């Protein structure tokens, strides 16, 4: 574990050096993600200028759910973004060979190799929104729940990462799976809003099949209103750990059937 952290630190510092080479490009990425969130908020603002609440959720509560959803997503994006490349090209072009000739775990190596600072665009926005809405809702906040919420964040990240690992692993059999990752990843946008606005099909999908609702709405709902504490908190932890187990299994199976490229 200590070795893993040490390696991770070294990779990050290497990446930072690379970043200095392409400063402008990376700033643009972070800025782009930031602006896209601002425009989404503008959209919410327009809606709430006409209605007092959305199915019982106030503007500030919606802002909190939306903002909180960006935090696990942003952390996953920051640390484990290289998995996308597994799906798009690393396996297809046979570049995965490199990871297999090193004396460290291939999944670990792939994930730490890249450090995506673009993600700060999402992370900063998420933190600002959460902070703003908490200040607005100050009188309703039950303070000890903040610790529970902080505890949940790593598990919520794990849900994102595990789903990415599973979908990226498909590439070991099909050569490419970038578009499957994309498809699954897009479902997380549903979790930015209260699950109560969706019909049952969507509810079931984002709760039990691609459980993105546990990365945002359920923990946020518990924090804001104390609803379904057991289901939301323990559920997030159980689901993330289970998913992570499955993802490791699929990944290892995939590596075994990796076929490389060329003759």
């Amino acid at each position, binding site marked *: 574990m200590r070795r893993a952290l040490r390696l991770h630190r070294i990779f990050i510092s290497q990446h930072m*050096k690379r970043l200095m080479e392409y400063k402008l490009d990376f700033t643009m990425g972070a800025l782009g993600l930031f602006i896209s969130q601002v425009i989404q908020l503008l959209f919410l603002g327009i809606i709430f200028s006409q209605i007092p609440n959305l199915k019982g959720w106030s503007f500030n509560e919606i802002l909190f759910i939306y903002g909180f959803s960006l935090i696990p997503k942003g952390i996953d994006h920051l640390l484990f973004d290289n998995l996308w490349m597994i799906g798009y090209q690393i396996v297809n072009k*046979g570049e995965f060979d*490199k990871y297999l*000739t*090193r004396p460290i775990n291939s999944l670990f190596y792939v994930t730490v190799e890249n450090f995506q600072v673009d993600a700060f665009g999402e992370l900063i926005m998420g933190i600002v929104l959460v902070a703003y809405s908490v200040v607005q809702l100050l009188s309703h906040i039950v303070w000890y729940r903040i610790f529970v919420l902080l505890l949940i964040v790593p598990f919520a990240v794990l849900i994102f990462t595990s789903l990415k690992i599973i979908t990226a692993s498909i590439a070991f059999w099909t050569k490419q799976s970038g578009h499957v990752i994309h498809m699954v990843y897009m479902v997380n946008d549903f979790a930015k809003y209260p699950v109560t606005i969706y019909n049952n099909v969507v509810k079931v999908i984002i709760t039990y099949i691609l459980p993105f609702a546990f990365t945002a709405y359920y923990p946020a709902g518990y924090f804001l209103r104390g609803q379904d504490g057991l289901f939301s908190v323990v559920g997030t932890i159980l689901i993330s750990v289970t998913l992570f187990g499955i993802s490791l299994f699929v990944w290892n199976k995939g590596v075994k059937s990796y076929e490389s490229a*060329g*003759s």
Partner: protein
Amino acid sequence: MIQVENLRKEFKKAIKEPGIKGSVKSLFKPKTEIVTAVDDISFNVSKGEILGFIGPNGAGKSTVIKMLTGILTPTSGKCCINGKIPYENRKKYVKEIGVVFGQRTQLWWDLALRETYAVLKEIYEVPDKQYRERMEFLNEVLDLQSFITSPVRTLSLGQRMRADIAASMLHNPKVLFLDEPTIGLDVVVKDNIRKAIQKINAEEGTTVILTTHDLSDIELLCDRIVMIDKGNLVYDGQINNLKHKYGQMRELCFEMKNSDDLLSLDYKGHFTLDEDDLSIESDGVSATIRFNSDRASVQEVLKYTLAKIDVRDINVKDADIEEIIRRIYKEGV
């Protein structure tokens, strides 16, 4: 050091049917066929040896190398290197080997070269003292000093290859796999790389498995070769034996005064030679006759030629290794 027994690897390959109908069909019910890339190969390599591993494109060389380095899992059969089975104990195993794929770099593209070494040091857990000594040694052998602070993307191909070899030697591996380490390099650089490989092998006793299409690499570096074709082992032995076995072919080259003269020469009839024992190439001015010296002695052939026609220039050559291998690739053993 290395034991390979009945190694076999099969791949599934999707069959594409033509047309829109075919591609819709393949979407729902993909048809696959099984391709055997490596079929029942066995050989051994002893410690400190430099083994040349050759074969035409698509013969299955890379597949074997990838199984030996733990990248691919064999369908059946066994390989065991220094007492370890690559695909079973991958993380432990790869600490003992170094791998260079000539076509693909393992260096960090955007960073100064020395940064790559700093990261590899951590990955392989090389102690500080040993790291300094290694860098000194590698620097001496591969002359890295002049470009170690440049970003990798600015290196020339020759520098990059030297850097890649150094990267694979940093952790003092017992076995070094070199997959086409001289591809695309000019003669001088090739020469440097070969000398470096020789030096590493001599000073450290590193076992080297070398695949290449450049047979002068093989001639200069290896005593023994393993040749595979279409997934099968076709030759395993000393290069000298190969020369001995197939070396009876000779080449007679001459320049003619009159281009029609060639028509008056009938080697085939005169010496009663088979298809396999004779080939004739000519561009009208000069001609190259390859013949089997067991069937027709050099002396006789020369005598016959000079008696029949006028030549400006004439010489006789041994078939070189390249010629022998060309013959094997074309015709099999």
